[in-house]
Structures are given as C-alpha cells and as structure tokens.
C-alpha cells in the first residue's frame, strides 16, 4: 500500500469516528448518572441542521459549532424535563425525541437541501504538520477531532477525579441512597442530560460542517444508535469510547474503499457492515460477560427516581 493511501485511510477513519466519539461520550455521562436517553439520533440531527444553517448564513464556524451545541442541549432539555420532572418512561421518551428530532430537522431544513457551505478545514501547524507521515496524521487533523479527544479526557477526569463526578456515579449506582445522603439526584441528572445533548449536537455538526458541505434529511443515518451501542461496548469507561469509535469508523472507511476497489459484493451489503458489526460485537460481548457482574454498569440505568421524603 502506498503512503498517501494509508494516510488518507487513517484520516478517513478519524473523520468517520469523531461524530461517534462526541455522541457516545455525552451519552456515557448521561448513562453514568443512571439515565438512558435513546434520543441521541434526534439530538445529533438537530445539531447537524443548526450547524449547517448558521454556517450558511454567517460563515462563522465558531458560531455554527456553538449553535449546534446549544441546539442539541435545547432539544435534550425536553427529554430532561419530561423524564426528571414528569417522570415519564425514559425509553419511550427517548424514542419520541429521536422521531421528533428527525421530523423537525427535515421540516426546518427544507429550504437548505440545495445549498452548500464552506467546510471547517483541518489545521496546519508550520513545521510540525510538514513532518512526513506523523505530520498529517497527528498535527494536521480537523480541530474538532482534537476537541472530541479532549472531551473524552475531560469526562474521564470529571468522573474519576472530582467529587461531583463521584456523586454523579453514585447517583447512577443507587439513586435512593444518594438522595438519602442529601445529594440532588434530579439536578445532577438534568445537567448530565444537557451535557449529553450538547455533545450529540456537536457530533451532528461534525457531519454537516466537516464531513460533507451539504444538508440532507436523515444525514445522521443511524450514527446516534451506533453511539448508544458504543457506550455499552465501552463498558461505560470513557477511553474505551475512542477505541470503539475507531473500530466502527474503520469499518465504515474500509467498506467505502472496498466499494472503490470494485469488490464483487453489492454496495448495500458493504454499507450494512458498520451496523452489522455493532450488533455482532454487542452480542458477543454479552455472551462473554454473561456470568460476570460488571461493576461499571450503572445499576439505576433507566429507572425512574421518585423522591419519597
């Protein structure tokens, strides 16, 4: 394999993985607090649309990214309000959020389907980016790729190195006990859900601001669901999200290249690969761990907290 093809595959993988890292690390924090938000796909698509619209009108990538982040947060606040204050079922509410996000973005994005925008460019650091192989692979990636990695680190640091992170984990483990000690379960969960929304919004924006310069209805194409699977794959451990995302990103990129090489498998089968891989990996993980108690699974995941005193 020649060097430039290798580099382009690797860069392709980082581009394919980053939206998954954003969405999954957000959802990981949410699930660690004991909330299951299945609305990731819906929050991502809203982020993708808002990022696109703001970039189109202002041309400012900063505002575009900010808009996507706030948009994801805003739509997740609906979920947070419904599940934390009205105590609705999290699974049903999350599914509704996804459907709502997909429908809303398709409707609001009607006028933009023919438009294109300027993509956010990869950075270029003098000297460092010019080093052969290492330069393009490490020092000339898209700024949002670096941001995604920083977010993973920050989430890890928050969960394991701060008191608030410990409290959040304790709430996910046993919300009644956390409440009994006097910690505000609802407030922590609300904030976690908003963070998850913001990250999903960023993940969505990455699609429309970095991957392709256009807006298309349903352009997240199930990445929100893969992100949910990634959280399980990672056993709720932050750094494993990166590993999982690279794996899934890698399969996506390889199947694209495979289509280019005229392999005699129809393109539809190849496009299925990342999703098939998700299912297969999750099932095999479960089989392997069947008789083991996993201490990192939040015990209260998806359970409604109802304060009795």
């Amino acid at each position, binding site marked *: 394999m020649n060097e430039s093809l290798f580099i382009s595959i690797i860069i392709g993988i980082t581009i394919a993985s980053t939206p998954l890292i954003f969405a999954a690390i957000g959802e990981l924090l949410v699930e660690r607090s004991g909330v299951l938000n299945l609305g990731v796909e819906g929050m991502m698509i809203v982020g993708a649309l808002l990022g696109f619209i703001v970039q189109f009108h202002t041309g400012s990538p900063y505002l575009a990214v900010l808009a996507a982040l706030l948009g994801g947060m805003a739509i997740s606040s609906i979920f947070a309000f419904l599940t934390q204050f009205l105590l609705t079922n999290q699974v049903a509410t999350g599914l509704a959020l996804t459907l709502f996000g997909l429908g809303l973005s398709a409707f609001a994005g009607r006028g933009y389907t023919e438009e294109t925008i300027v993509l956010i460019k990869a950075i270029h650091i003098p000297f460092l980016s010019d080093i052969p192989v290492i330069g393009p692979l490490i020092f000339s990636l898209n700024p949002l790729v670096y941001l995604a990695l920083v977010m993973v680190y920050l989430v890890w640091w928050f969960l394991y*190195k*701060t*008191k608030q*992170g*410990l*409290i959040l*984990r*304790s709430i996910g*483990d*046993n919300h*009644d*006990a*956390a409440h*009994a*000690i*006097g*910690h505000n379960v609802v407030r922590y969960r609300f904030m976690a859900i908003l963070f998850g929304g913001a990250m999903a919004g960023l993940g969505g924006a990455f699609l429309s601001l970095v991957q392709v310069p256009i807006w298309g209805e349903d352009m997240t194409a199930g990445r929100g669901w893969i992100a949910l699977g990634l959280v399980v794959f990672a056993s709720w451990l932050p750094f494993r999200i990166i590993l999982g995302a690279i794996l899934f990103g890698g399969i996506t990129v390889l199947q694209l290249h495979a289509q280019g090489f005229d392999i005699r498998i129809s393109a539809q089968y190849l496009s299925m690969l990342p999703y098939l891989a998700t299912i297969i990996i999750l099932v095999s993980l479960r089989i392997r761990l069947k*008789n*083991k*108690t996993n*201490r*990192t*699974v*939040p*015990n209260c995941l998806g359970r409604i907290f109802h304060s009795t*005193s």
Partner: protein
Amino acid sequence: MNYQLEVSNITKSYGDLKANDDVSLNIKDSSIHALLGENGAGKSTLVKIIYGSLMPDSGEMKWDGSNYNPKSPFEARENGIAMVFQHFSLFESLTVEENIILGLDGVGLNENFTDEILKYSKQYGLDINPQQVVGDLSVGARQRVEIIRCLLQKPKLLIMDEPTSVLTPQEVSDLFVTLRKLADDGCSILYISHKLEEVREICSEATILRGGKLVQSCVPQEHSQKELAEMMIGKKLTELARSNINTGSDIFSIKNLSCPSDDMFGVDLTDISLTLKQGSIVGIAGVAGNGQDELMELLIGEKATDNDVLYFDGHDIGSLNSHERRQLSMFFIPEERLGHGAVPDMSLDENMLLSRPESDKMTSRDVIDWDIVSTFTQKVISDFDVQTPSGRMLAKSLSGGNLQKFMVGRELIRKPKLLIVSQPTWGVDAGSANNIHQSLIALADQGSAILIISQDLDEILSLCEQIHVLSEGRLSDAVDMKKDGLEKISQLMVGGESS
C-alpha cells in the same frame, strides 16, 4: 445532667394518620438511648424529623440547649448528627473510600483519606479495607463502612436504625464494644431496635412508642423483656410452648445434595443431607451468605436438582417446579418479600391467586372467581392481623412486617404438609413475630413438618427441636442442645470463616 438532644411535643400527620402524636424524647450526653416500637409506631418518622429529612407539623427540638430545626440532612450533619440506615445507603460499585467520601460534606477527592479511615478503623475495632469495592463485602463489613463514614463527621449523636438485624452474634458483640467506646468518648447514640434483650444489654434509657404516641421513657434494665414487649404492643404476650411434640414418619428428605453456584459470588452447596418427620420443626441457623439463598432456590424449585436427591412424601421432586411442588402440598415463604415472595406491583388478591394450588377452586375453567380469591385474602388479613385497608392494595404499599404477615398467612391457611420458610419474622415487630411463631407451632402440632432457615438464633432456639447450622455451603449434623448448647452453634456458625 445535660441533654444532648431534647425533642418536645412533636406531631406529624399524613392526612388523617398521625404518625407522631405529641412525642417527646430526651437524650443525655454520652448515653445510649433506645427507641422502641412496633412497625408503624412512628419510630422512622421521629428519626427522620431529627435527621432533617422530614419537617414536623408542630413541636420543637433543642440541640445542645439551643433551638434546632433542621431543614435537610445537611443541616443535621453540620450540627453533628449522623445516621446509619437500616437499609444501608452504600453504593455497591464504588470502593469503601469513595463511599465514605460521598457521605462527607466539603471533602474533595484529592485529599488522602485512607489514613484517616484506617485510624478510625483501628481506634474502634472496625475492620475494613478502604480500597475494596463495597459490592464484594459482607453485610457486617458494610455496616462497619457506614459507621466509619458517620464517625468521620465527628458526630455528637449517632442514630442507628436496627443495626443488628443482619449481624451474626459475634458481629453484634463486636458492635456493642464499638458503641460503648463511642459513648465513652462523648458521642450519644440513639439506638432503634425491637430486639429487647439487646436494648437491655446496651441501652441506659429507652423511649417506647406505640401507634405514634409516647408510651413512656424508662430504664430498660428495670423491666423484664416481657414487660418491655408488652409496653410496645399494648397487650399481653403469650408464652411460646410446644405442648407435645408428636412426630410421625419421615416426610421430607435431602440426600447428599451438592450443587455448584451459578453466580461467581455465590456459595457452592456441598453434600447436604437432612430428614424431616411429620410434626417436627427443624431449624437451619447460620450467617447470611453461607448458602441459604442457594439452598432455598433448590428447595422451592426455582432451580431443578438431580434425581434421587430431594424426596417429599414418597415422590422424587428434584425436577418439579415450584408450582408442581405446591400441588403436592409443599409450601414456601422465601426471604425476599418483594420479588420472590410477592409481586410488588400486584394487589394482595392477585398475589393470593398466584401461589394457589389447583385445589383452591379460585378459578373455574381458568376464569378467575375474584369473590373466592378475596374471601381467602380477607381470611389471611383478619387471621394474621395484616394492617391494610383492603385486599386491593398493592403488595409494595405494605410495610415489610405487614407483607411478611400476609405471606406467612397465605401459606399457612393452605395447611401444608411441609412448610419451608426463610427468615419468617425478619423486620417484623415483637407482637406480630409472636403471632407468626404461634401459628407455626400450631401448624406443626397438627402434624405438618416445618423447615425454618433463619439468621435469628433466638427464633430458631425457641421454635425448633432439631437444629443444624449452615456454614460455607455445608450443613452440620443436628446440634445436641442439651450437651453442646449455644456455644457449639456459635462455633459452627463462624467455623467456616477462617479469620
């Protein structure tokens, strides 16, 4: 004498129900004070008010002589009140140290707490390893974690809600050493319990509540256990006695039962053999987590055994499920009330129906006759004094003790040939426990065999004429009470644990 805490004329109502009605309580400096009462007597309400998680409707409290009206547990802790909960408020997936830090206000993660924890651990004889994950600890160790968590707040009042209900005799006496030391060091203790012999042993004063009202405050040593119990329940207690033990032929036997556990934290059962005669009450003592759950699972039929291991009334029942075993008149009262014993989100009527044997005629051609079901439920409710407005109440809405009475009653009215019961009076107050014990004896007197698995040694000693001890999945031979007595049982109970 100074009072650490003075509680005067507290009233708290929930709708029409007065949970606390003009209750007063004074706790002296450095004393161990008992709060006694049956389930529903208002103990928890009073404690929650003291701990700041409930606000009283009227009445006042003084702490160290000045007014005290806590609006949250944070405020109570700031004042120096700490509490060890009955159902431990620990986080299983976190380490001991993390759990302790979580309960401390204003302590960050960076501060190194390990030494501090070990210091208290040594000073009060509370043996724990700060880096261990709580999910792997025994119940007794978990309680030690809770106590240390409280001690780190340097409390002046430590509230303990039924601390010994889950401990072994050895752990109980260790706990008492710790508590006495604490009181000597100036920390008052409010000790909630319905185990009267313990209260008489360790508490210098007792406040007794009944039906939300104060009965009296007294010095427990000045009253007999029976007097205290009668003050709690407000009526005379009947002595337990088996008039004449008439045992018939063998009805149930376990032959060399061995079974590895499915759970990685479970206990493997090894070579268990046991025979029950008609009319006999046999007890299996032992500390929780020594194979009781695993044994119960097999006896109930939640898990099948090999053939030629379990025999009931001439049938090899190893492969029968629990419904099929019930048809043969084997009945069960499992330990876990919500989940194994009853469906939490279903009414008492529905729960009644679920454990029915075919012969009860509650259904005709699979159509339920609710009138018949509810006559059965009503009978249980009245015979066993279950406090509930009707059989339509959800199982989970009943207090633990009440639900236990319902479950015991549900099985007993079937007049089973064999009753297998785990922890028959766990969390049940003295009056009701007395009732349950008498019903069990009456059942045995009618010729039924009863197998009791319990951690409550007193219960086993007072009911059973044949006692075995389960330790690390092995069942001892019957203990000769006349010859070896209690000492032998205690020895066998801890025998498996090498420490």
